[in-house]
């Protein structure tokens, strides 16, 4: 395993919502991608959106805001949005 770095992780109730995020994330220019959900999270869906957030608290906050903005703009229901070292 490589060195853990901060990521904003969005989790979903359904695979369909996760896939909607994949399409929306690309369209809105996010840097993240869909990945298997980290085991420390207990979300229902096996997919999570991982947005890189390395560079300090302000960068992490901005990354979380960007993810939430896409979720809201596209009407995608997330189970949660958290900051994790992955």
């Amino acid at each position, binding site marked *: 395993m490589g060195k853990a770095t901060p990521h904003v992780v969005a989790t979903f109730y359904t*695979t*369909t919502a996760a*896939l909607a995020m994949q*399409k929306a994330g690309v369209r809105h220019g996010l840097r993240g991608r869909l990945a*298997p959900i980290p085991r420390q999270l207990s979300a*229902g869906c096996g997919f999570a959106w991982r947005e890189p957030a390395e560079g300090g608290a302000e960068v992490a906050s901005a990354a979380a805001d960007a993810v939430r903005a896409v979720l809201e703009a596209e009407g995608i229901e997330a189970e949660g949005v958290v900051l994790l070292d992955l």
Partner: protein
Amino acid sequence: MIYFDNAATTLQKPPEVARAVTAALSSFGGVGRGVHPASLAAGLAVYEARDAVASLLGAPGADRVAFAANATAVLNIAIRGLLPQGGVAVTTAASHNSVLRPLFAARDERGCEVRVAPHDARGSLDYAALERLVRGADLVVLTHASNLTGDVYDAARVAHVVHEAGARVILDAAQTAGALPVDMAALGVDVLCFTGHKSLMGPQGTGGLCVAAGTDVPPLLEGGSGTHSFDERHPRFMPESLEAGTLNAHGLAGLAAGVAYLQARGMADVAAHEACLVQRLRAGLVRMPGVRVLGGGEAAGHCGIVALNVGEADSALVADRLATEWGICTRAGAHCAPLMHRALGTESQGAVRVSFGAFNTEEEVDACLEALEVIAHDVSRGR
């Protein structure tokens, strides 16, 4: 060969459909069952199919479109989910067995009452009777267009009456989705059931249901979901709540391609094309002595189906002559529509169903008319 059995399944599909399925077969992993590239490819293709269907049929969004193997499967899901134990269901005599049998099973096994609104000998629905039957009902299952006559019924009018009565309405759009412009929101139905392999141009083994916002359809099947693995029961989140087990992602990739073709061509163009073919065939048939065209009495419209009989000739023999002597594929018999045949008085004779698709031509219609003229002449002479 002239293929006029599109109400059973479309044979001539856009080439993009086969290309999409072929590509999927060699590149897809399990849909929703992993996050590696092969699984994501399958997942995104299924998502594209949901999005395309939602857009074409006026569903609230991709997350309100659930897939299954065919219209029969999703009608079973919707009927079982929305008709309570001991509840009252209403349908019409135009219904296919995919509606009638689940309803009669609910009557026999779950204490439900089933009321059937009649059609007259021209195939027209008795709306006044339907409106009376809806009172006190829990669920109405309406066939959008008869798979026998092609007549379209006024779904918006029925949905309004059903909702006034406090019930829900399922629309069986097996014959209209992809053949006519269909907008679930404008029609006001709670659930719209469709099949992928007819006018939507997808492969067999694809179908689905669109569920209105605020309508909860409980799962019929429970099992693998790829999510919530430690829950004892199947997750209740749409659309995956209605999709236990691995989806037919290969087929759904083809369905997405078929729907994309329809969107690019335009539903109005497809509907107008099929209406022209229907009109041409009917115009030729009315000039043939002894030929009876079934249905046609509905004000709400018509899809690309013409059902007929030649004198008292067995419909199976007429269809067989069309196939063996002229290479024209039609469908004879009862068409899984027993109550409509009873209404039309064709239980013993059956009917010859000619059904058009987006790729049929006027020349093919003319060839069919020439063949039927020969058959009608023979029948009139007792041969």
